[in-house]
């Protein structure tokens, strides 16, 4: 696989050629924050962003996604979106989250057809973090740097961008750039230094203990007072879930047209902090209390998903910390409280 050094102008030219060639979503400014959106020109791309409001999972599992069209009499047809697209500027922690979603949705025998189609249609250009966000703690979670999942990795270094391809699809994408010099040993050293630095500086909150100790810690923390203490201020608004790159729960709903004879079945993002998340027929609710829902999220991230896929389902992006209006959703704060005991 190739490793090139792009000057700023060459990178811009490359991105513009990608835009000319098809659907490209990239990170852009949204007021004083950042968001992934359809990219119209390379000049709008902000690889120096700190964090996006929503993670790029919205392109693999959109907020609202049609699954099936149906009609009276039993006719139905799956809706599959397989139009190719390029995702530009995915940070390592978000790439790590996508790798986790792959483990869940593409697991042998449990493949989610809709996710699979979008994932296969995606060419992912990851980029190392240039500007750490105010609440990032990826350094503590082992996700400050990523080594798999992407097709291309871009790292801003002094004097340009080191661009590495990691798949045939990435190679093809890079071919659109034309003649670009190979990265020198010195450039590679610079990239390594950036990544080493990121491992150390993406730690705005410091997790005590190793992440992989969390399942055991949670195993004995069910009755810890922190759940009640924090949940007291919980709005049950699900913001912490909705901005999370590893949250993938969804609700399935139907909508009919005016004839009531045909319609669509679609899924929308759900959130385990919402009051009716665990409500079932007959009016029973498995997690009726705020504290039960609040606790569940930490168990899901720190115990239940790790037991399924062997990785902690928190990648340290810090979005939940920022998004929580009541400021009770900091995973590091909660897990550290558990480490300290009651």
């Amino acid at each position, binding site marked *: 696989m190739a490793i090139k050094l792009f000057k700023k102008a060459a990178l811009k030219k490359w991105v513009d050629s990608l835009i000319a060639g098809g659907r490209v979503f990239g990170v852009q400014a949204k007021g004083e924050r950042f968001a992934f959106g359809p990219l119209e020109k390379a000049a709008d791309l902000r690889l120096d962003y700190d964090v996006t409001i929503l993670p790029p999972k*919205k392109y693999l599992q959109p907020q609202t996604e049609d699954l099936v069209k149906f009609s009276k009499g039993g006719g139905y047809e799956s809706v599959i979106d397989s139009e190719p697209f390029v995702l530009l500027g995915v940070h390592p922690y978000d790439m790590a989250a996508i790798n986790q979603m792959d483990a869940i949705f593409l697991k042998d025998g449990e493949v989610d057809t809709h996710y699979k189609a979008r994932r296969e249609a995606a060419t992912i250009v990851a980029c190392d973090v240039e500007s750490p966000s105010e609440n990032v703690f990826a350094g503590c979670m082992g996700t400050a740097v990523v080594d798999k999942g992407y097709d291309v990795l871009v790292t801003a270094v002094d004097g340009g961008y080191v661009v590495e391809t990691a798949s045939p699809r990435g190679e093809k994408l890079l071919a659109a750039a034309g003649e670009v010099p190979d990265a020198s040993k010195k450039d590679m050293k610079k990239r390594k230094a950036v990544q080493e630095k990121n491992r150390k500086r993406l730690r705005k909150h410091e997790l005590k203990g190793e992440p992989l100790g969390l399942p055991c810690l949670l195993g004995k923390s069910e009755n810890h007072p922190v759940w009640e203490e924090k949940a007291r201020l919980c709005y049950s608004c699900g913001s912490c879930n909705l901005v999370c790159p590893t949250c993938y729960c969804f609700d399935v709903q139907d909508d009919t047209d005016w004839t009531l004879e045909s319609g669509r079945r679609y899924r929308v993002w759900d959130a385990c902090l919402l*009051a009716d998340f665990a409500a079932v027929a007959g009016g029973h609710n498995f997690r009726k209390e705020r504290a039960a829902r609040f606790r569940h999220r930490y168990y899901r991230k720190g115990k239940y998903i790790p037991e399924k896929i062997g990785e902690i389902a928190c990648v340290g992006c810090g979005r939940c910390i920022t998004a929580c209006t009541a400021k009770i959703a900091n995973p590091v704060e909660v897990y550290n409280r558990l480490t300290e005991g009651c």
Partner: protein
Amino acid sequence: MSKPRLAIFDFACCEGCQLQIVNLEEEILDLISLVDPVEWREAISDQSDTYDIAIVEGSITRPEDEERVKKIRERSKVLIALGACAAIGGVNKLKNNFDMDDVKKCVYGKDADLPHLNTAMTKAVDEVVPVDFYVHGCPIDRDEFKHVVKSVALGKKPNIPVYPVCVECKLRENVCRYEFNELCLGPITRAGCGARCPSNGSWCFGCRGLAPDPNVDAAKEVMDKYKKTVDDLRDRILLFNSKQEHADV
């Protein structure tokens, strides 16, 4: 199967929610392919004695209104409260914060005692008669109205959010209004509008009413984090949610 007979009635309100139905424009034809409108002052001149679905817009503010809405209820199989005034009392309930005589004098001056200007405490429709379904908001969201009507026609329970507006703000990737140092009622207000105000640069006014089991205590405590006071919160809640359950902060 014959089409359900639909009637629309207005009480104390601006009739803007009915206007949202009229604003369905070409979809009105779809609506009347599904239901048979038999009484609807804003759009047709017919009147009827019985209906399968009654849609009631506006608040109940006079004794004679109570009698009228009770009769509507008797004549209908399903009753839907349309818009904030009908569903929660909304802006009209501001009045309930004051003495009724003072209210009358303030509004009508020397004519306050004329019999046809008599007024009472504002009630939401369900404070007078049972309501089967609600279309919340000021004004209503047309898509939600369509969803409720289609659900009723299908004999299905409409799916009306019980979660706060924050959910829809996040789905639309809005920057939180609190980051703009604004006091937004989104965290305690029932969603379903698609976070329309925050998506268009304003804080949430709470027009859809408080979400079921809103954490108002949290809202009070959170004010301090954003250099706002409980008085600020109370002022903002009063506009659409005066005299509501949980709204007494």
